[in-house]
């Protein structure tokens, strides 16, 4: 198959909808347009049945015992908000302390910050240089006032997979609820809410080859029964936890995507990990000073986050404009601050500016991996020829010893 440009290697940002998913969704825009909440006619019944089937498929993917534990939302940002604010509001008489980590997604961090303004206390756990949250640190942070621990399943930037099962053991022992933003990890690393003692989990369709605009929050119904206060009021949809007419085509697509992931995820992940390793090997073979960010062992199969020292990330992305990747460089954000995730892992701002995240996925081909490895190597070499830092490094100057004029 001929190589087609541009090449997509940003699967952490979003994924294309699998053609099988699109096909399953299509009737629900047209002839099967019913409102799942219409109880009085066949249009509504058909929609409700389709929603129920999707609920079952998504529950099966994450090991949930009861499909009613799946609460549909607009996406993971809403799920994170609903989980954390919902628990905080419902259990505020019990305690006011929440534990999370510094490398969570903004949907978790900013939600926690808002709760702090409302009087809650939040502990932001640090991570190791590999981006791991240590269960021991969670244990130490637990207090009598702790009502919730929220730790992501896998990080979106460096792909580090967190020890959720170990953390789940701790929280279950103490009767504290555990929420995980599982968005990046579902289907790519083993995840089972029962085995891992997870009480709430945020998931979204568009990171697993489903459509955008549909997500879910897993809310445990037994042992323990988790209660949350709804954050959107209205018709009382989704067992009273999230009002609003259901996005039936989205839910149908989400269900199909979950079914495919359950059937093919494990095999697919092996292939993707091989391609990721090949990309890493090709890059490091040709280039020196390529630093892997994150954990080698506890890593999402499709994630490769590396810093090409002495080359600025945005400049590199401009040079490889036929390849869609992302960077922890400040220049890609409006804030001009480099990645807080890399910063939290103790990676210097200079290397954070030089970082590139490659995200491989279902439709990545070996040809694309070869092409990207060659193109990136060539452009890094070219940019290093233009880099005063690389020249100084080659002359043996320790860049850390130079007095830079910060600006």
């Amino acid at each position, binding site marked *: 198959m001929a190589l087609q440009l541009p090449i997509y290697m940003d699967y952490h940002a979003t994924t294309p909808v699998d053609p099988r998913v699109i096909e399953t969704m299509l009737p629900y825009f047209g002839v099967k347009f019913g409102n799942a909440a219409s109880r009085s006619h066949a249009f509504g019944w058909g929609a409700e049945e389709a929603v129920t089937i999707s609920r079952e498929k998504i529950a099966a993917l994450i090991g949930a015992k009861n499909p009613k534990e799946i609460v549909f939302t607009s996406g993971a940002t809403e799920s994170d908000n609903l989980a954390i604010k919902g628990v905080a509001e419902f259990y505020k008489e019990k305690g006011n302390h929440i534990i999370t980590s510094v490398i969570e997604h903004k949907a978790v961090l900013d939600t926690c910050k808002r709760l702090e303004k409302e009087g809650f206390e939040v502990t932001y756990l640090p991570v190791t240089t590999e981006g791991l949250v240590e269960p021991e640190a969670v244990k130490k942070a637990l207090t009598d006032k702790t009502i919730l621990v929220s730790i992501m399943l896998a990080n979106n930037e460096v792909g580090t997979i967190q020890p959720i099962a170990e953390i789940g053991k701790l929280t279950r022992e103490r009767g504290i609820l555990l929420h995980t933003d599982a968005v990046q990890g579902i289907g790519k690393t083993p995840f089972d809410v029962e085995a891992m003692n997870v009480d709430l989990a945020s998931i979204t369709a568009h990171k697993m080859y489903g459509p955008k605009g549909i997500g879910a929050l897993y809310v445990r119904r037994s042992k323990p029964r988790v209660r949350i206060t709804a954050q959107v009021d209205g018709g009382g949809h989704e067992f009273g936890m999230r009002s609003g007419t259901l996005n039936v085509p989205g839910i149908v697509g989400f269900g199909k995507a979950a079914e495919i992931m359950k059937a093919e995820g494990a095999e697919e992940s092996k292939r993707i990990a091989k391609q990721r390793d090949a990309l890493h090997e090709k890059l490091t073979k040709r280039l020196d000073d390529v630093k892997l960010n994150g954990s080698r062992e506890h890593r999402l199969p499709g994630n490769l986050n590396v810093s090409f020292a*002495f*080359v*600025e990330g*945005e*400049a590199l992305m*401009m*040079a490889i404009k036929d390849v869609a990747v992302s960077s922890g*460089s*400040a*220049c*890609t954000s*409006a804030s*001009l601050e*480099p990645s807080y995730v890399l910063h939290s892992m103790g990676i*210097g*701002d*200079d290397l954070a*500016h030089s970082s590139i995240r490659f995200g491989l996925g279902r439709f990545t081909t070996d040809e694309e991996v070869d092409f990207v490895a060659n193109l990136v190597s060539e452009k890094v070499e070219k940019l290093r*020829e*233009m*880099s*005063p*830092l*690389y*020249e100084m490094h080659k002359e043996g100057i320790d*860049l850390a010893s130079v007095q*830079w*004029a*910060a*600006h």
Partner: protein
Amino acid sequence: MAYSEKVIDHYENPRNVGTLDKNDEHVGTGLVGAPACGDVMRLQIKVNDAGVIEDAKFKTFGCGSAIASSSLATEWLKGKSVDEAETIKNSMIAEELNLPPVKIHCSVLAEDAIKSAIVDFRAKQAAKRALAK
């Protein structure tokens, strides 16, 4: 972010990338920025005895706009007297390259690099004169 055509042109075909002998008394070197801030520019000028910049070189660690700003600066410097070079302002660079507000600091850095290279050149000349006395 969309780049202007001029930024892309300078980025893809950078003018005057390279290194001049920093120990040469005719060469002034400016090294500005910091790796932690994501941009470092080194700009060098070579001034002949008539006080005219006959060569200019740069190397830049930074985004496309930073590379383009320094590339443009070297282009403008060549053939100017040192005094004329001093009048180059960041706003002129930003305007020429159509830099968006978030990239204005790249042009500021280029102006700093020019000034820093001139200061270095003048310091060398002053040292030379002091020695000759």
